[in-house]
């Protein structure tokens, strides 16, 4: 390592300003002028051969001897000493193609090379004409040196095969050979066209048109496969589409020639190829697993590349994105990572069109195991045809064939890295908004940014386990600029709509309990309120716009949900009633509108939830049944709608739960019927957290009914299945509060069964686990539901402790339950669940104290107070006849039978 000599260590522009040598400032105009003279001569002659150069310099010296002499000196230096200066290691450009000679103007194999068209890893391509007849061609020279005789033999062999390919969609091979230096070359039919992806974008082709182009490409590949020629390097750059819209595949068989160890080569690739980690001609973004692992390539390799091509045609993005060019990374991305599904990678507007068939087709073409892909390019083309004519595609069949949607989303880290960058960009852009003089233009920029940011990115990762922190980052930054935009929105209704939607997205991520969320319930409610206010404005301004009204109802439902969680029951009731009223009207106007149907479904369920919380189970059941009826009637007009199917299964399970409360046998029947479809959906899309959670709930419901019926073993078995899913979901997304809460409930349910079964120590352990988890949830987001769960967990633990005769410990947990719940309960007296917890905690305290005294003993004052409080709380709830009422009455009787022993004693000061 060279140490710089001391005199260069000091910063040349350090403490002494301009004028200090060697900095040449101020620039002497004569210096610049002299430089220009030197430059003019140098660039004029540098390209000449040595003799021509000398002659030119002699001419120029007559006009400007000084500059000519300097140019000559520099040129000599260039030839002798500076050849590799600033080009070699360590800062190599890594672009070896650069070093290949420029052969423009030369004649190769009878072709005059007129202009270089491009160069890449494989070599150079020239625009050329055949000298004998002026035939236009593209000549490709391969960057591959070796024994010229051997190369020539290989090229000849290859040429015989390739020249036999005559297909409208394949650029024909005209000639081939090797230059004197041993560079193999091929002359190909000259195609004047655009790379296929560019062509599609430039002509704004829709999905069916892109699929038709793709089928033509498949046909060409299949034709070649029939003749035992594999392409091995299918990628957008190798498929040009002519002005007439005809795709042409270039370079058939040429990449293969360059890959060592392939059948058509003699097994001795170029020495470079043998040494490098990857075949030299490989384009990693378009390589198949077998190629990067250097396993034998087959026609399935081309099928894989066609899958990548189809993905890119549909989404405009590369399916295999590399963040580094390190071989390890390439192997990881190509062999171990499933590309993101096209429907998720594409712009939001295309999602619906791509989800389903096309996702499945691409997935099957991109199977890592060659044998699991389509058997041929023809089969792939046929599948695309079936999709285009709305016939069922095979990729979505069940059983042994690969199921639809089984994409594993790309690794989370990649998303997170992208997000950080995005977030800082947005921050910067917001700052620019404030400062920019051209405010309007900036405004539009930010608006567009907001759009792609929230709608494309957020949607892409929404259902992905582990995405919560990434979504939080989106939210924080998004709120900053949304607030700016909202202040400036004015009369721009388009913007008002965008903003209303955007605030909903933000609220979802903050705390909407139906989805993975960040536990910021208060923040979510604030965002939904903003959304509702904007949507009200929009709906008022455009009364005929059903979309505006729908947007409003969605906002109201979300706001209602948050109001429930925050213990604002009257507000929740009001928001949900308003939403239902609007939606009933919309449903009558648009009976086939899937979004309206779904919104109505959600609102009914929310109402049910609220009514249960308010202690009105019959009204809640009626709401759930209304949801089920609505879902059924919508599915009757739209039988294929996947979301509606899921909605129906949810509303059925809600109905089952309430029915099962009263009639467990009927409840178990209803629940058991829901399990198989849930399991099927979850298996079809294992990374979809929502579907996994649905299945979890399905197991749980069945298990609970079995528990009620005393089927302990079956119940514990199904609880165990639910627990496994809950743990997996939490592992996948440790910061998701919903997952944490789910896991807690699982343990509590198992505790319930064990308790019923009489296994007290095990039950205590399960309840304790549940309690720990609930405490973690409540610490992070102390909303009413979380507090309620935490309260119940203390009660559960206390109950078992009492049965184990650990009275002091039990009393301590009752006390903690009261401490935890009473502030929330006082804030929202209408919340029946919270009141019930309070009543149970007081009752438990009283009973435990009485138990300690034993039968016939004096009744401590605290026990009396606790029992009286419990009874008062239950009375305020207006208990209907049932177990709770019976319990209340039992306690009242005990209180009456208990003499106030301490009443006579004076109270301590």
């Amino acid at each position, binding site marked *: 390592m*060279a*140490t*710089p*000599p*001391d*005199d*260069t*260590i000091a910063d*040349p522009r350090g403490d002494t300003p301009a004028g200090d*040598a*060697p*900095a040449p400032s101020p*620039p*002497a105009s004569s*210096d*610049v002028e*002299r*430089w*220009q003279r030197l*430059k003019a001569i*140098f660039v004029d002659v*540098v*390209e000449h051969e040595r003799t021509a150069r000398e002659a030119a310099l002699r001419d120029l010296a007559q006009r400007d001897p*000084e*500059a000519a002499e*300097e140019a000559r*000196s520099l040129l000599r*230096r*260039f030839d002798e*000493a*500076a050849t590799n*200066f*600033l*080009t070699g290691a*360590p*800062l*190599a*450009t*890594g*672009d070896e193609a*650069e070093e290949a000679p420029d052969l423009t103007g030369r004649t190769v194999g009878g072709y005059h090379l007129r202009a270089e068209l491009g160069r890449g890893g494989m070599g150079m391509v020239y625009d050329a004409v055949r000298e004998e007849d002026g035939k236009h061609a593209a000549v490709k020279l391969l960057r591959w040196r070796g024994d010229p005789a051997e190369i020539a033999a290989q090229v000849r062999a290859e040429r015989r095969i390739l020249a036999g390919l005559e297909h409208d969609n394949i650029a024909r091979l005209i000639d081939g050979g090797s230059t004197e230096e041993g560079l193999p070359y091929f002359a190909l039919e000259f195609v004047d066209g655009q790379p296929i*992806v560019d062509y599609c974008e430039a002509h704004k082709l829709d999905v069916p048109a892109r699929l038709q182009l793709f089928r033509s490409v498949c046909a060409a590949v299949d034709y070649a496969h029939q003749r035992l020629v594999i392409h091995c390097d299918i990628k957008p750059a190798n498929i040009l589409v002519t002005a007439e819209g005809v795709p042409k595949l270039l370079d058939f068989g040429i990449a293969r020639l360059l890959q060592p160890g392939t059948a058509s080569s003699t097994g001795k690739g170029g020495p470079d190829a043998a040494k490098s980690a990857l075949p030299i001609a490989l384009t990693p973004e378009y390589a198949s697993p077998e190629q990067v692992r250097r396993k034998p390539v087959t026609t399935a390799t081309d099928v894989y590349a066609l899958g990548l091509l189809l993905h890119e045609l549909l989404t*405009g*993005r590369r*399916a295999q*994105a*590399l*963040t580094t*060019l390190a071989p390890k990374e390439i192997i990881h991305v190509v062999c171990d990572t499933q590309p993101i599904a096209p429907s998720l990678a594409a712009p939001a507007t295309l999602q619906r069109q791509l989800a389903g068939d096309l996702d499945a087709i691409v997935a099957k073409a991109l199977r890592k195991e060659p044998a699991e892909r389509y058997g041929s390019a023809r089969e792939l083309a046929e599948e695309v045809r079936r999709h285009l004519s709305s016939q069922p595609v095979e990729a979505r069949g069940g059983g042994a064939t690969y199921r639809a949607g089984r994409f594993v989303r790309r690794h989370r880290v990649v998303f997170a*890295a992208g997000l950080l*960058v*995005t977030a*800082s*960009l947005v921050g*910067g852009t917001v700052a*620019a908004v404030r*400062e920019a003089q051209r405010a309007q233009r900036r405004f539009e920029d930010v608006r*567009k*940014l907001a759009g*792609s940011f929230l709608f494309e990115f957020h949607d892409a990762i929404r259902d992905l386990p582990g995405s919560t922190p990434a979504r939080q980052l989106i939210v924080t930054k998004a709120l900053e600029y949304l607030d700016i935009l909202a202040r400036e929105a004015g009369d721009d209704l388009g913007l008002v709509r965008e903003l209303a939607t955007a605030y909903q997205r933000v609220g979802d991520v903050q705390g909407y309990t139906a989805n993975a969320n960040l536990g910021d319930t208060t923040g979510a409610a604030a965002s939904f309120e903003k959304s509702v206010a904007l949507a009200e404005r929009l709906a008022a301004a455009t009364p005929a716009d059903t979309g505006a009204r729908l947007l409003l109802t969605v906002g109201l439902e979300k706001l209602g949900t948050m109001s429930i969680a925050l213990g604002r029951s009257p507000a929740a009731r009001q928001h949900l009633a308003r939403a239902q009223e609007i939606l009933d009207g919309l449903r009558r106007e648009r009976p086939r509108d899937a979004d309206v149907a779904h919104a109505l479904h959600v609102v009914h369920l929310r109402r049910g939830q609220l009514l249960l919380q308010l202690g009105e189970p019959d009204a809640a059941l009626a709401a759930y049944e209304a949801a089920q009826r609505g879902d059924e009637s919508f599915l009757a007009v739209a039988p294929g709608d996947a979301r509606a199917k899921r909605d129906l299964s949810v509303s059925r399970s809600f109905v089952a739960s309430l029915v099962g409360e009263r009639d467990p046998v009927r409840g178990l029947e209803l629940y058991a019927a829901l399990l198989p479809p849930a399991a099927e959906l979850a298996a079809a899309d294992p990374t979809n957290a929502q579907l996994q959670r649905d299945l979890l709930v399905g197991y749980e419901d069945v298990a609970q009914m079995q528990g009620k019926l005393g089927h302990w073993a079956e119940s514990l078995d199904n609880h165990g299945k639910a627990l496994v899913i809950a743990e997996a979901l939490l592992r996948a997304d440790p910061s998701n509060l919903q997952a944490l809460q789910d896991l807690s409930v699982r343990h509590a349910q198992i505790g319930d069964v064990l308790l019923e079964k009489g296994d007290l120590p095990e039950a205590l352990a399960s309840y304790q686990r549940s309690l720990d988890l609930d405490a973690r949830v409540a610490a992070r987001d102390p909303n009413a539901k979380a507090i309620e769960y935490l309260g119940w967990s203390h009660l559960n633990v206390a109950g078992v402790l009492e049965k184990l005769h650990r009275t002091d410990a039990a009393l301590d947990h009752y006390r903690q339950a009261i401490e935890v719940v009473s502030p929330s309960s006082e804030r929202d007296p209408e919340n029946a669940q919270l009141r019930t917890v309070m009543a149970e905690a007081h009752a438990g305290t009283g009973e435990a104290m009485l138990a300690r005294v034993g039968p016939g003993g004096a009744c401590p004052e605290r026990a009396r107070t606790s029992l009286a409080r419990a009874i008062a709380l239950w009375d305020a709830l207006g208990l209907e006849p049932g177990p709770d009422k019976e319990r209340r009455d039992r306690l009242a009787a005990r209180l009456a039978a208990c003499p106030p022993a301490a009443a006579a004693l004076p109270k301590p000061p």
Partner: protein
Amino acid sequence: MAHPDVTKLLAAWSDGDSTALDLLLPLVYADLRRIAGRQIKAERRDHTLSATAVVHEAYLRLVGQRQVRLEDRAQFFAAAATQMRRILVDHARRRAAAKRGGPDVRVTLDEEVAAEIARDLDLLSLDQALEELTVLDPRVARIVELRFFGGLSLDDTALALDVSRRTVAREWALARSWLHKRLEALRDGGAPATPAFGPS
């Protein structure tokens, strides 16, 4: 996603909006520093550092999988080149200062990158010579920056500067010859600047 924003920033920048470049460069800089550090660690054994690989990686990180117009891509690399120069020269300078300060100064990864290059080249002198060249001919100096520090191909350099590939090739040859001579003069005792014609 990152891509539209970067592309937009690049587009705004090439339209002459310098704010966009200000927003872009810190991103590039942070990324380059990190990648350069990792790269040198990973490839230490064969003592090569591919500027292209480093910059490519930063680029891919920024734009993701989306295809970007060639011009935008070239602009990006051009921006990266400036950052790369700044990173490497800064560290060469700090390292040189540290060497004088004492033997036990901790060398960071970034400094190691600079050190690798210093095996063959005195980066500080090159930087100084480039400053001189900038005064004489900003475009030629910029070509050096793009080619050497940014690892841009001739084609990308041409795109970034909006000149022909041939012009880049010729001026690149001129720049290398001139810098070679200039560095020799500096090495031989800090000869005063001889912008175009030295006392040969």
